[in-house]
């Protein structure tokens, strides 16, 4: 896909400065196409979260242009944070219902959507559970179900699996690709794991800090669906090496 998809969102020459001189993003450009799975890969402080917050409309760029292909494209995008960010007072079902509730829908009219979203993340039977009864991985699944329940065109994920153990993370990586294929949505995924970014994405954007900027964009042209076979392939290893080199260059720029 990559180069051929229809454009969804384009960021051109974006700068974001906090206070007087904290340059979180400098001349950041990115063209997002429909169906892309883009990873933003870089050390902490390189402006990955800032980039997502700009796209989510939670803040405005200091300068630069952000253009959506259509007004609807920007509506109701899905977001997944590093923490599951569930409402502890609400059941799993009500947590997933939240985006639809805020859009003014009644629960009875969207019950099917809620259940199918929960089924997609493998949480049937947990509708009535409270978040505290769930493990970290399951909470993250609820968070993903909530992001997907509105069937958004674009989902933003900010290091969603960083706090999980590796086995859980692998499993969720696999499932995430399956869900993306089912929904046909576009994903922008922030991570600082080279392996995760290569496994998931068709495009890996490597970023550097101080000021936050794009160092290199790598294409990962391996076909989807990807599975454990891909994870052990030479192709995968080669891509990981390339991404690591780029990341090393990004980190080497500045003394740490």
């Amino acid at each position, binding site marked *: 896909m990559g180069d051929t998809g229809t454009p969804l969102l384009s960021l051109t020459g974006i700068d974001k400065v906090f206070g007087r001189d904290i340059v979180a993003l400098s001349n950041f450009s990115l063209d997002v196409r429909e169906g892309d799975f883009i990873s933003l890969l870089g050390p902490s402080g390189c402006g990955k979260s800032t980039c997502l917050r700009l796209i989510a409309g*939670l803040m405005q760029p200091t300068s630069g242009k952000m253009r959506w292909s259509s007004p609807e494209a920007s509506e109701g995008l899905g977001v997944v944070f590093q923490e599951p960010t569930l409402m502890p*007072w609400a059941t799993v079902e009500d947590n997933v219902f939240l985006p639809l509730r805020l859009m003014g829908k009644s629960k009875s009219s969207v019950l099917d959507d809620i259940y199918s979203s929960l089924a*997609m993340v*493998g949480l049937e039977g947990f509708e009535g559970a*409270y978040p505290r009864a769930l493990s970290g991985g399951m909470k993250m699944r609820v968070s993903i179900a909530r992001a997907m329940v509105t069937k958004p065109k674009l989902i933003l994920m900010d290091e969603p699996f960083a706090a999980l153990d590796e*086995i859980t993370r692998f499993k969720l990586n696999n499932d995430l690709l399956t869900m993306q294929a089912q929904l046909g949505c576009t994903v922008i995924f922030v991570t600082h794991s080279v392996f995760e970014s290569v496994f998931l994405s068709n495009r890996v954007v490597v970023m550097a800090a101080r000021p936050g900027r794009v160092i290199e964009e790598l294409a990962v042209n391996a076909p989807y669906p990807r599975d454990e076979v891909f994870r052990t392939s030479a192709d995968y290893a080669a891509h990981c090496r390339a991404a690591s080199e780029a990341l090393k260059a990004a980190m080497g720029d500045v003394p740490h």
Partner: protein
Amino acid sequence: MTQTTLDEVSAQATTPDTMKAHADTVDAEEFARARKQRLDKIGTWAMPVIVVVLTVFAWDQIVRINEIPHYILPGPGRVFETLINDWSVLFNAWTITMAITIMALLVAVLGGAGLAILFTQSRLTEMALYPYAVILQVTPIVSIAPLIFIYVESKLVGLLICAWLVAFFPVLSNTTLGLNSADHNLRDLFSIYKASRWQRLRYLQLPSALPYFLGGLRIAGGLALIGAVVSEYVAGTGGIGSGLAFTILEAGYRLNIPRMFAALFLIAVTGVVIYAILSVISHLLLRKWHESAIKREQ
């Protein structure tokens, strides 16, 4: 997608072999833990009862052995007798104090929570009114009360105002804190989905504030009673519609020490009961989800 979650996989990771090797020690530990839990459970009820019984017994013995006259220190039996013999007097006074306490608490809850909600909706109102709330809080009620009784005709209303003044601040400050304590990521999420002010209040801020509000409520319950009693001491003169504080004052003038003790006992029991009721309400509202109401397994 397979339906086994990772968590199940990790649960199976402990093989039967390793489990067997530790079986003995685990058993011993488990046993010790169960024993400790049982002791804890008995202790929560037994300890207070034992302490109270011992105290009353010691009190009784001290009075008996030293032959202390009842107009100086009555024994527990005498206080209990007075409680029964003077019941109609005491009960009438108790009803008045209770009525003031409950009404003051109700108004404090409505006023405190309402004002807190108003504050979060309008920064300007908060900036304008918060100083007054603080000033009222830090000024001792006994020093405001005489003024209130000058300006307010009805003694009952005066007492109510005093009790309310004491009780409402914890509700206000706790609820304000709670309304502002919603998780910042959740707040962002509400912004992304373009939640209205009302939706944000209803689905995010109020639930976040509930545990804080209930904490404030528990404090306010005790304070409302204290406010009702203390301001009656200030109000002084009795007549119809006097509460337990006046009963104590009057009994003091007449050196009716047993009645003083009986009234004091009623106030203390009332305070405990109010606290217990509010604790139960709080537990019922939070037990499904809040850490404070959930018993962790060791």
